[in-house]
């Protein structure tokens, strides 16, 4: 690992100034530091200063608080704090469930909300330093001809990463807004935080240099749920995941929002599924299956990841059940 300095700014303004400080070649913001450390250990980048914003919060601010018309979580709230928050659990269960499902208890106690949104992809070509892939300024995506079991089934490249965040797709179904400091924008809708590879391969988000996530707000989605399929049930990344929020009239779905994760370079909204769910009774298994089957419309699987086409409708349907307060998993 390279030598680096740690700066501990007293305010987001000061953090922004440090980011812009010309004395530094590669200043990097550090929240929990999970992904920063991974990158430094692998030699993927060598920051000369880490700007530690882990403890930076407005005076007296709690990790999670009630905001006008919704919930506010600080950018450096840990995943564990969000998962354990009663107001998140009751107002937007999908957010609590998404945070609870990530990584391990140890990681969740350290990893932050903003870090979860902005972590870099887990693609094994990106993470291995000997592969000069597109994301690292190279000339090809090695997954195309190589090992693409965990790669994207939507988007069509040229870079085939899947977005690694659990939290982002959850925020997508409850109007998440990311609040910023240090740039021109005050805030950005979660849907506009990420971009597809064709808009720039070397980064996944739309933040300008100097823009720092201070906090996140989202609207209540009391009927919402998360479902993830993983190979391993401890410490593993999703094969697919689905986040759903519903408006229910008794058993009948009046409106739905559906977002998938781990299937595309960005959180992947599924508006066709949402539309098809309108008017469907949650107890009508056949109708749910029919609507969920639309989740793979437009997918372009690679050689080894077509199995995700089978998983995604299952995850969507089970997330709907969970959103409606039902046990999503079948009994033996």
């Amino acid at each position, binding site marked *: 690992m390279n030598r680096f300095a740690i700066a501990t700014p007293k305010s987001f303004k000061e953090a922004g100034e440090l980011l812009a400080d010309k004395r530094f070649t590669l200043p990097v913001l550090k929240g929990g530091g999970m992904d920063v450390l991974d990158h430094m250990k692998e030699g993927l980048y060598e920051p000369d200063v880490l700007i530690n914003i882990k403890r930076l919060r407005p005076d007296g601010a709690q990790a999670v608080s009630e905001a006008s018309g919704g919930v506010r979580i600080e950018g450096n709230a840990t995943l564990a704090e969000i998962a354990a928050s009663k107001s998140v659990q009751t107002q937007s269960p999908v957010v609590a469930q998404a945070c609870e499902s990530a990584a391990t208890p140890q990681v969740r106690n350290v990893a932050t909300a903003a870090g979860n949104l902005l972590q870099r992809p887990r693609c094994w070509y990106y993470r291995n330093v*000997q592969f000069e892939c597109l994301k690292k300024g190279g000339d090809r995506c*090695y997954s195309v001809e190589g090992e693409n079991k965990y790669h994207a089934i939507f988007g069509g490249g040229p870079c085939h990463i899947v977005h690694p965040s659990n939290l982002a797709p959850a925020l997508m179904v409850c109007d998440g807004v990311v609040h910023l400091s240090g740039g021109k924008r005050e805030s950005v809708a979660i849907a506009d935080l990420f971009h597809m590879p064709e808009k720039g391969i070397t980064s996944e988000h739309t933040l300008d240099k100097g823009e720092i996530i201070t906090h996140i707000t989202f609207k209540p989605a009391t009927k919402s749920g998360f479902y993830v399929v993983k190979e391993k049930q401890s410490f593993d990344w999703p094969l697919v995941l689905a986040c759903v929020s519903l408006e229910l009239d008794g058993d009948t779905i009046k409106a739905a929002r559906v977002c998938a994760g781990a299937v595309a370079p960005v959180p992947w909204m599924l508006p066709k599924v949402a539309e098809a769910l309108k008017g469907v009774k949650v107890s009508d298994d056949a109708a749910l299956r029919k609507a969920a089957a639309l989740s793979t419309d437009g997918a372009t699987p690679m050689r080894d990841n077509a199995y995700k086409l*089978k998983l995604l409708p299952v995850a969507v349907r089970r997330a709907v059940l969970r959103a409606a307060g039902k046990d999503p998993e079948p009994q033996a």
Partner: protein
Amino acid sequence: MRPAPPFDPTNLATTNRPMNKGSYSDNTSRLDAAAKVTGRAKYSKDMYLPNAIFVALVRCPYGAGDLESFDKGAAMAVPGVLEVDISGKEGKYHGQNVGYLAAESPHAMKRGMRALKAKWTRSAVKTTIAEGMKEAPDVDQDSKNLLAKADHVLTAEYSTQVQIHACLETHGSVVDHRGDSATVYSSTQGTSSAKDGLERTIGLPKSKYEVVCEYIGGGFGSKLNGAGKEGATAAQVAAKYKRPAYLFVNRAEDQLDTGNRPSVHARVNIGFAKDGTILGGEIRTWGGVGVSRGGGNISVPSGRYKLGDIKRPHIDVTLNAGGPRPFRAPGAPPGAFIEELMLDEVATIAGVDPLALRLKLEQDADRREMLTMGAKLIGWTNRKATGSQKGAMRRGFGMGTTSWGHGATQTEAEVAIHRDGSVEARSGTQDIGTGQRTIMGVMAAESLHVPLNLVSVNIGNSSLPIGPGSGGSQTASSSAPAMAAAGEDARNKLLAAVAEKTAVDVATLSIENGAILKDNKAFMTWKEACAKLPTETLVGHGVWNRKEAQSHPSTGHSHGAQFAEVEVDAETGVIHVKRVIAIQSGGKIISRKTAESQVIGAVIQGISYALFEARVLDRNVGSMINANLETYKILGPNDMPHIEPILWGKGQTGVRPIGEPPTIPTAGVIACAVFNALGKPVRHLPMTPDKVLAALEGAGA
């Protein structure tokens, strides 16, 4: 995932279990448990010695390549870099070493490695067994004739993946060279074999250096290769500078270049009668042995079942990848996976219960009894017919067997009694986590007839009496009798000394629970007796070897049977293993807790192999792209089933193998249970959701 239901032992026929009432020690906890859990235990990797040099190996980053250039000047210019020595030019696998860099600190070493900017030109690679299977001959005429006579023929292809040992403590050594003598702190499964062959690189006669290995963070077979290239390089650097040299590989290097269990592909053509009687046929196998030329043999058929006349041609396929090393029952787990799943497929085609089929084919009476007992414990009668379940969540039951041969390795041991009454059990052998330290203590205490807390155990040092390498499940069976003999010798010598000093007939003396008896009545305390020793220390000696073993008919083979209950989500392909019953014989058990722990650990490793672990090579570049513990997946707590180890007591005498046999059947047992649940066999490990879903569609066979 839903948590597993609480285990209810009252549901099982617990009263009929042949528990090992005769074990030496039922409840002794590991003697080093406190040291290990408090961090007081110092592993070889923890040996950061003053003035040490840190050494890294320069390695090929691709499956094949030539070292085009490197910037030695830039590396040497990094403060703290002492030396760059690169002699090789060609890499035939990812991780192959071509030289080393030595530096004053770990950070200087890493910075130096980066400054080296080694540039490699890639060349074409061979990464899959399939490339070696292209010219496979057809089944031979004899087998064809035999198959033609059969009522049914099962034709199927099975495959297993490369499994990495993934020891928590990576491979390496620290060589403390003092100029005229040295101590080698090695993470090794054999203190004496690690000593062998180092004399040239370390530049000292064998009398001038010793190998120390107090604790090991996992071995599993990959640390049986002496001090290895890591130890040899550390010794070379240490000898050159007459300073301590530290070379422990990092996690990625450990995954790449410290051995593995090779992959297997099997093509099965077997014929059987309507009732499941197997006539024979051919099981053709290929081993994916990486850069090695051999080492991929697999144990199929195992010999445990009557399978008629089976031909078993085998070819090892050399690939651009790290080569194999011994790995906990090397070729047996993949062999058992193929054999057990094949048997369940035969049973299903023939329409017979797999339990009935196994009882019919089973060669050994003990294992037949174990099968019957295990079936009762798992609740075999709750099993539904294979293929009969249609719901999303399906339940399955599977079974399998295991066996392991007994051997003996030349072993010496000492029990020393000091005048102050303290006792030392001495053996050069090492504890790779099996409980070896504990059983050495138990054997010394048992044979002396003193309480265990009187005994301190000194192991893990090549200067102590030679102990066996931790391999072949022979460590306990070789060292325990040697330690018992040493204890007996020490006891006799102590009593002789007491008899002489007190002028009584030695034949009237005995020891019970640390007290000296005369004619079975209290005579003197242990301390009083030891104070009468003519010298400061009395040493009892014990030996065990093949000859001794042959004259002790009490030793024998180990057997076992395992059963599993699984739930398979047929919509996602996710497998939840709920329960495993592991019945295992291992002779007269020395330390019940550590023996049970061995069985549990073996089952965990077997499930992890069945469901998760796999080395992934990029097929074009040949690099291992999951050389870490993130995407090289190992079973974690949420995937742990309830595991019930049952140590078989019936007819058990002597000390028998127990380290390897319980990991043999597990993957096959899980595969059978999954087949039972789904009605389709998953013939390729690891059984990840993609493969399960493919099997359900009938593809992937």
